[in-house]
């Protein structure tokens, strides 16, 4: 099975050809945003980090930022720094170059203020666009793809239609030699046993218990019990009874193959196959993390409807019910509710989703892309100082 993609160095393959304008710190964000506005065709990534990170959060932030900027959908990056920040353009630039990424940097404090930084930055951004715009798509095996599976604004049908259909598509991609990744550790609680029984090795089994227990403990340390907060009142009204039931429905989106690796937030997997990333269930934070881990395409199931996208990876929206699809046709790419209408089976819907993944990987725009949804948010793990 093949798609039309971009071959990057070191054997990786992209499905988009973005030039990013990336502030290394929030203090450089306005300059970066104005540069991107002056150079149509570039993509601005706003965030509020880059300074004041305590302890291991610094490495965590670097991993997320470097991962985002070296996703194979990115052809080139303009890093915009301030100068005195923790994560400077110089520091990140070196890491991007080491990873084989085409990068230019600009540091605002070395310029004569905002105006000059924008002018110089725009020049560099245009140079990157010119260098990279000629890249051609070519036939590439589907094994080069890593798809991120996500569910959000779920309803009682998400676990019965859209998630298992996405699971079928993930199984198909993995059979082709590709990878799928899913996260949302809080939505694994109650389903740990099922996931652990699918671990490809003792180490993966141990890691699954480690990340789920740690998440449970963190919530308990706040004096809360997730089993009292979840399922939420809305979930219960919709018919979900226990946290385990919610989790069992959520993990279906990853399919049924063995779990080959457990990675940290934004960490690149070293193995092909089905991978779990330890991370929160927050929609934008989790999508950002999986894209930073290298996913080129995101498939996002929803029952109530959420419009979020990604600045780096196309996000395919799948509705769990037909009434959402009818109301939200401008946002939803595929309607898995048709399974309940008797038009499709889980199997045929999974095949349709897999075909959609290959088409989107080959350049077909998703609804989220057409609408300009470029949400981006990095997980924080420590208080900011």
């Amino acid at each position, binding site marked *: 099975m093949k798609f039309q993609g971009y071959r990057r160095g070191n054997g990786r393959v992209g499905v988009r050809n973005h030039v990013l304008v990336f502030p290394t710190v929030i203090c450089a964000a306005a300059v970066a945003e104005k540069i991107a506005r002056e150079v149509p065709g570039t993509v601005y990534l706003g965030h509020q980090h880059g300074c004041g990170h305590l302890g291991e959060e610094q490495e965590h932030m670097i991993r997320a930022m470097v991962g985002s900027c070296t996703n194979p959908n990115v052809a080139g990056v303009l890093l915009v720094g301030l100068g005195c920040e923790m994560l400077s353009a110089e520091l990140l630039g070196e890491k991007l170059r080491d990873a084989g990424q085409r990068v230019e940097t600009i540091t605002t404090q070395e310029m004569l203020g905002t105006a000059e930084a924008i002018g110089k930055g725009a020049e560099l951004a245009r140079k990157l666009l010119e260098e990279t715009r000629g890249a051609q798509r070519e036939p590439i095996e589907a094994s080069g793809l890593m798809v991120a599976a996500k569910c959000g604004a779920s*309803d*009682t*049908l998400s*676990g*019965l239609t859209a998630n*298992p259909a996405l699971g079928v598509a993930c199984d198909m991609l993995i059979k082709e030699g590709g990878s799928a990744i899913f996260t949302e550790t809080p939505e694994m*609680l*109650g*389903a*740990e*046993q*099922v996931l*652990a029984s699918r671990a490809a090795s003792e180490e993966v*089994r141990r890691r*699954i*218990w480690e990340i789920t*227990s740690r998440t*449970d403990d963190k919530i308990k340390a706040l004096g809360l019990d997730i*089993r009292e907060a979840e399922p939420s009142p809305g979930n*219960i009204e*919709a*018919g979900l*009874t*226990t*946290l*385990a*039931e919610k989790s*069992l*429905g959520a993990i*279906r989106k990853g399919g049924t193959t063995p779990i080959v690796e457990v990675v940290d937030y934004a960490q690149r997997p070293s193995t092909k196959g089905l991978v779990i990333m330890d991370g929160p269930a927050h929609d934008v934070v989790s999508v950002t993390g999986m894209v930073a881990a290298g996913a080129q395409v995101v498939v996002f199931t929803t029952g109530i409807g959420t419009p979020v996208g990604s600045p780096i990876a196309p996000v395919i929206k799948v509705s769990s019910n037909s009434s959402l699809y009818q109301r939200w046709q401008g946002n939803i790419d595929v309607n898995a509710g048709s*399974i*309940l209408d*008797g038009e499709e*089976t889980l199997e045929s819907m999974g095949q349709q989703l897999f075909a959609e993944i290959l088409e989107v990987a080959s350049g077909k725009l998703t609804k989220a892309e057409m609408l300009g949804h470029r949400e981006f948010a990095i997980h924080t793990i420590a208080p900011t100082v």
Partner: protein
Amino acid sequence: MSPDLLVVDAKDNVATALRPLEEGERLETKVGGSTLEVTVSEPIAFGHKIALVDLERGEQVLKYGEVMGLATQRIARGQHVHVHNVKGPETRRDGS
């Protein structure tokens, strides 16, 4: 697939209502290869669950072929299965 009820896995002892169910309705649903008949014994909302078999107190409630909870009281076939008669399964911390 049945337009009234959805059973995910052949091991399941509950089904999800795909429309609001009325007391006294007799429904058929496929479970694995066979057809199972169930009479609805109380109103059940869309998206909520109905017992496909009699469940004793403490018995495992199965959906997706897995344990989603434990019955906190006897649940008769055809009854509404929800927070009033099911609690979450015991948490295990190490898989041992």
